[in-house]
């Protein structure tokens, strides 16, 4: 009996020792990256399969292995539903030993998923979500929010317009978390810059007939009509605004414009519209080189979440290599200590709250005459320094 107890103790100790050793190296002898995105719904074009491609490119460019262990990629469709996404991520962590989750599109899904990840002490690399909640009221030491957020959009697009004298604003807002967040932060920016919001109307996600909303906007007497929506909602509302002649009498500002949406619009309607973006493929040689490779594999030019997904995967893998482990705390510390620097991340650093601060671009949509190809859609108007674009860090989110 005593001997058995001793054996048990010895076994227990060796198990403890073994797990102790594991924490230093790579867990389960593989670094597994989960890509969660909307693969077939309204946001499939802006991340979706393209984000999987971007992550694959990052892994290949990194060499396919880290610290001598293979890097694997798994992907899943979250259908823009928080329950589907969080269940999948839970399964990835508990059943499939996934080390890090990237992609992450609809803010509602990201909110649910980051809670699961934080509980499990795993890192979330957020590329396509807009809400700034993940680094403010829902901040976590395991969140890294990469490409852009609503604060950057409002500071980038709205602020200069108010300062140039467009004081009265009206919003057509997507009626869910993301739209509310965007309208809210844009309203703050407008009021602090001396403008006023004369009205707002909420349209359900996936509205096809925007005429009544546009008529309300027309009747409001605003200088600018802000479209606090995205994807096909943005395209449809802008088309309707043009059909009703709203674009001729007032300025219409798209607050969140992705390249595939801009590409889908008739230049006659969209020309001259300004937008804030985290990335544009035709900025310089570096971006063109990567975008050409992306286009060759995926079939279309990259939108900003694609470039962000590549950049953050690369930065994560570099951090794993430098830290000598895939243990989340050590990797996150390393990610914050070293500055990301690639075709996407310019003058960039990962702040302690998980916000990746980098230069944003203010662009305007080109008219038909000045376009040299189907992919030639933006003029770059200005570079917005990261510290100007993004919201300042909250003291309670200062995770060191």
């Amino acid at each position: 009996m005593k001997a058995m107890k001793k054996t048990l103790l010895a076994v227990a100790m060796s198990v403890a020792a073994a797990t102790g050793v594991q924490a230093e190296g790579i867990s389960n002898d593989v670094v597994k990256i989960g890509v969660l995105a909307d693969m077939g719904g309204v946001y499939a074009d802006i991340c979706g399969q393209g984000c999987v491609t971007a992550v694959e490119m990052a892994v290949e460019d990194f060499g396919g292995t880290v610290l001598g262990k293979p890097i694997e990629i798994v992907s899943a469709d979250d259908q823009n539903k928080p329950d589907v996404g969080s269940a999948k991520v839970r399964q990835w962590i508990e059943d499939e030993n996934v080390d890090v989750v990237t992609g992450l599109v609809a803010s509602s899904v990201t909110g649910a998923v980051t809670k699961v990840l934080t509980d499990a002490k795993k890192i979330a690399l957020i590329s396509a979500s807009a809400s700034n909640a993940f680094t403010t009221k829902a901040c976590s030491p395991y969140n890294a929010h990469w490409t852009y957020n609503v604060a950057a959009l409002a500071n980038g697009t709205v602020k200069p317009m108010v300062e140039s004298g467009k004081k009265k604003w009206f919003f057509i807002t997507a009626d869910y978390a993301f739209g509310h967040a965007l309208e809210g932060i844009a309203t703050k920016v407008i009021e602090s810059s001396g403008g006023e919001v004369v009205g707002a109307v909420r349209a359900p996600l996936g509205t096809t007939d925007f005429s009544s909303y546009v008529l309300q906007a027309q009747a409001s007497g605003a200088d600018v009509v802000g479209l606090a929506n995205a994807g096909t909602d943005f395209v449809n509302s802008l088309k309707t605004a043009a059909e009703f002649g709203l674009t001729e009498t007032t300025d219409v500002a798209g607050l969140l414009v992705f390249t595939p949406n801009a590409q889908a619009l008739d230049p006659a309607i969209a020309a001259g519209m300004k937008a804030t973006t985290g990335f544009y493929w035709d900025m310089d040689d570096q971006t063109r080189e990567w975008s050409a490779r992306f286009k060759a594999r995926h079939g279309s030019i990259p939108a900003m979440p694609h470039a962000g997904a590549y950049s953050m995967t690369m930065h994560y893998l570099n951090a794993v290599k430098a830290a000598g482990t895939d243990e989340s705390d050590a990797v996150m510390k390393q990610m914050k200590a070293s500055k990301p620097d690639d075709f996407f991340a310019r003058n960039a650093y990962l702040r302690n709250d998980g916000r990746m601060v980098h230069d944003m671009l203010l662009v305007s949509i080109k008219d038909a005459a000045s376009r040299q190809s189907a992919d030639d859609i933006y003029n770059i108007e200005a570079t917005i320094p990261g510290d100007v674009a993004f919201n300042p860090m909250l003291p309670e989110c200062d995770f060191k």
Partner: protein
Amino acid sequence: MIKMNKLYLFLIVIALVAPSIVYPVFLMKLLCFALFACAFNLLLGFVGLLSFGHAVFLGTGGYITGYLMLHTGLTPELGILAGTLGAGLLGAVYGKLAVKREGIYFAMVTLALAQLAFFFYLQAPFTGGEDGLQGVPRGELFGLIDLNDNFAMYYFVLAIFIFGFWLVQRTVHSPFGQILKAIRENEPRAVSLGYNVNDYKWVAFIISSALAGLAGSTKTLVFQLASLTDVHWHMSGEVVLMTLLGGMGTIFGPLVGAGVVISIQNMLSGGELGNYIHIIMGIIFIVCVLAFRSGIVGEFQKLVKKNFG
């Protein structure tokens, strides 16, 4: 009867060892939906009432439990109890209105009422709209057992499922259940025998909605999330599919149907066919309705009867 007991024993043993082989959260999801389908089957299979808005009870149970667990620090068993009662109460109101009509009109009334609730949950501030209620704590059962452990949670869910399943069986095999079946077979005759048919339907509706609420409450604890998906009419359709596929009016039909539907969804969601989930489910549904109308368990029972009966 002995044969039945052996079967139950066998199933319980399987259920007890299953989590060490299969991923427990998947099993919990399966049990929650199986319970939901059992509750639905009580109405459709044994009273002949097609409620096309049953998801509203699933979701209501989930929202109530989620809200209470998040904001009042209730223990999980009380949270689930509150969710179940809430769904039952809503079922009492909706049922009272719906049983006044029959057939397609009954289905339409339940659908309309469910949509009413859906848009209420979409706009009401306490549900979090599209975000849902996130990060619901699983808590400690009776203040003692930590449910964050998946195995503890699994056996808790299993106990709830067995209770719900037993309750449905008890209802079906009681004198009350006999009258329900009589109503299903020939309603005017039940009336002529002096039964107040609407009251019987109403009580069955309440039991069914409370059990659906129980399933929703449990699901919320498992996934630590209550979302709009659970109140959407898609979910109401899904439970119809589960029940018909498994075998309407059979004891194990809903269990098998839920198992098949959830497994297919689970298998397809990760792969290349992810985009075609709805098409594949639709085809399965069509095949089921055209080729084997009494569902998997129903056809199996017929086969057994023909060859061994």
